[in-house]
């Protein structure tokens, strides 16, 4: 099917909006747009970071998800207490696949769930005593932890517990960082505010801890910020940086430790992959410690090469040569991957709906494979994300912010992409419709996708999904004809 024209896409949006009541229609219309590359500012065509409408199916998370799940969770040698009822921590436990090295339960705690398991009496009488007791127990049972963070769930804010006081007391008692994070789920409109709160907590409680202490630096120190090591992403990025001669001091926060984070103020440049979740801390470090930061993109060989050169441009000739050497080394390998998969994937069309950076970052990787992204959208992006997206997307493509379940389904039915890339909540609807689907949050239990090594896996996975013969044989359950009686009897 050929691509939709601008008029057709606009008509499609109008048609999808038709089912909503007047007020909802007016609100949702602001979040759906047809891309126009000539627009300088996204806010002229799309509204983002607004409260979701009650009654529609949104795919967003909460502030707790943004703080505990995204920013703090992957710091492996700290214990992150899900402070409040048991569910929030338990149902999100280890779901994000941010890999790490270490012995779980001894010196690393990434996949474990620590919770204060609030009961009725804790809501009535307050949970501060329980939290203090819990921290004491943690110290006894897991003495090798390097710190504790208290991730508030909704009730903590509602009953007004003073977790800061408990944390300060415990920190003094055990001589370890104990960080209270006010990331109650009801704050903000999506997980995005949780990222911000988590960044602020790091700024206030972690970064100042090593101020004025000795640090043996080199002129080539960098920190990788906003890479959560999903399926090993940070590792496949890190080796490229190290190969070109840089020293990666800290990984934020996939496979990261608190010691690395404390040392970050000594690096020369902060390299930001996930802009949405970690730009706050980068801005802070730029102001306070004069560390410049830059965004980079490690999806697909074109963007990797572009990013490596841009990073190298901040350093001396040695690093610039290093970057060229790395690019030259991987060039034939990447060409082999493209030669193998491009003929099988060329011309295929993709619709994306992911979180905070992938809706624009992976476009380059698809283009390297000859595929075209015909629709994209952010769960919790802000205006500055859309500013960056408009240039990357083709004209007359669909852009949707905080898309609802209904809208996304209708868009897919009409645009008929060859592949949909989104998360677990959308996966089964589209698979049952017979549309090839990849999870672009967790890489569908594969990965890594970052860097050169990641691209080979990315290409294989896309081919494996798209060219799987099963899709044409699927009839959606809701489209199946009633089985004939005879067949039932025979069975």
């Amino acid at each position, binding site marked *: 099917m050929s691509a939709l024209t601008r008029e057709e896409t606009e008509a499609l949006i109008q048609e999808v909006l038709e089912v909503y009541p007047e007020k909802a229609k007016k609100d949702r219309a602001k979040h759906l747009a047809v891309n126009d590359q000539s627009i300088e*500012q996204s*806010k002229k065509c799309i509204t983002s970071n607004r409260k979701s409408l009650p009654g529609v199916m949104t795919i967003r998370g909460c502030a707790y998800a943004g703080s505990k799940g995204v920013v703090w969770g992957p710091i492996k040698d700290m214990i992150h207490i899900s402070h409040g009822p048991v569910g929030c921590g338990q149902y999100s436990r280890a779901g994000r696949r941010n890999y790490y090295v270490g012995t779980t339960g001894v010196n690393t705690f990434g996949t474990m769930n620590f919770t204060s398991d609030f009961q009725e009496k804790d809501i009535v009488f307050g949970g501060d005593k329980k939290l203090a007791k819990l921290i004491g127990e943690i110290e006894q049972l897991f003495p090798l932890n390097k710190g504790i963070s208290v991730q508030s769930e909704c009730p903590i804010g509602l009953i007004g517990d003073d977790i800061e006081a408990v944390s300060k007391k415990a920190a003094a008692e055990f001589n370890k960082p104990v960080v209270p994070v006010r990331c109650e789920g009801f704050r903000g409109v999506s997980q995005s505010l949780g990222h*911000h709160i988590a960044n602020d907590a790091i700024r206030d409680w972690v970064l100042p801890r090593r101020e004025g202490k000795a640090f043996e630096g080199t002129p080539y120190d960098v920190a990788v910020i906003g890479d959560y090591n999903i399926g090993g992403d940070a590792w496949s990025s890190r080796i490229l940086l190290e190969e070109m001669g840089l020293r990666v001091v800290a990984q934020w926060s996939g496979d990261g430790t608190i010691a690395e984070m404390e040392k970050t103020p000594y690096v020369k440049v902060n390299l930001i992959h996930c802009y949405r979740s970690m730009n706050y801390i980068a*801005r802070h470090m*730029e*102001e306070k410690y004069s560390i410049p930061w830059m965004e980079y993109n490690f999806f697909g060989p074109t963007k990797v090469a572009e990013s490596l050169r841009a990073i190298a441009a901040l350093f001396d000739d040695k690093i610039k040569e290093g970057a060229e050497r790395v690019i030259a080394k991987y060039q034939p390998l990447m060409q082999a991957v493209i030669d193998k998969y491009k003929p099988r994937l060329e011309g295929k069309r993709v619709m994306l709906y992911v979180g905070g950076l992938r809706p624009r970052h992976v476009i380059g990787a698809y283009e390297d494979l000859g595929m075209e992204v015909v629709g994209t959208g952010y769960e919790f992006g802000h205006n*500055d994300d859309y500013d960056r997206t408009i240039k990357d997307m083709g004209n007359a493509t669909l852009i949707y912010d905080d898309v609802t379940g209904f809208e996304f389904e209708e868009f897919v039915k009409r645009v008929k992409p060859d592949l949909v890339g989104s998360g677990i909540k959308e996966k089964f609807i589209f698979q049952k419709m017979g549309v090839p689907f990849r999870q672009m949050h967790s890489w569908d239990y594969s990965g890594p996708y970052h860097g050169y090594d990641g691209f080979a896996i990315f290409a294989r996975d896309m081919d494996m999904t798209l060219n799987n013969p099963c899709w044409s044989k699927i009839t959606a359950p809701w489209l199946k004809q009633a089985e004939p009686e005879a067949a039932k009897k025979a069975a």
Partner: protein
Amino acid sequence: MANIMVQRGSKTDYVFYLPKRDLEDDIVSMEFDTPEKWGGEIKLNNGGSYYIEPQAAPAKLPISLRAKRLDAAE
């Protein structure tokens, strides 16, 4: 009054950032822009305008400041 951050920009001299609303925009004009007197009324690319108490130009950017909203866009 709002906490804002002013930093160097690539397209314009200064970029405005309002963390509370995650608003990032170019500053298209600044009333005073000399080493002795810096600040005053600033106009943003999106049409909004803010007022920074005139002061000596900051030694380094980015800098966090308090600013008064005169006219917000949208």
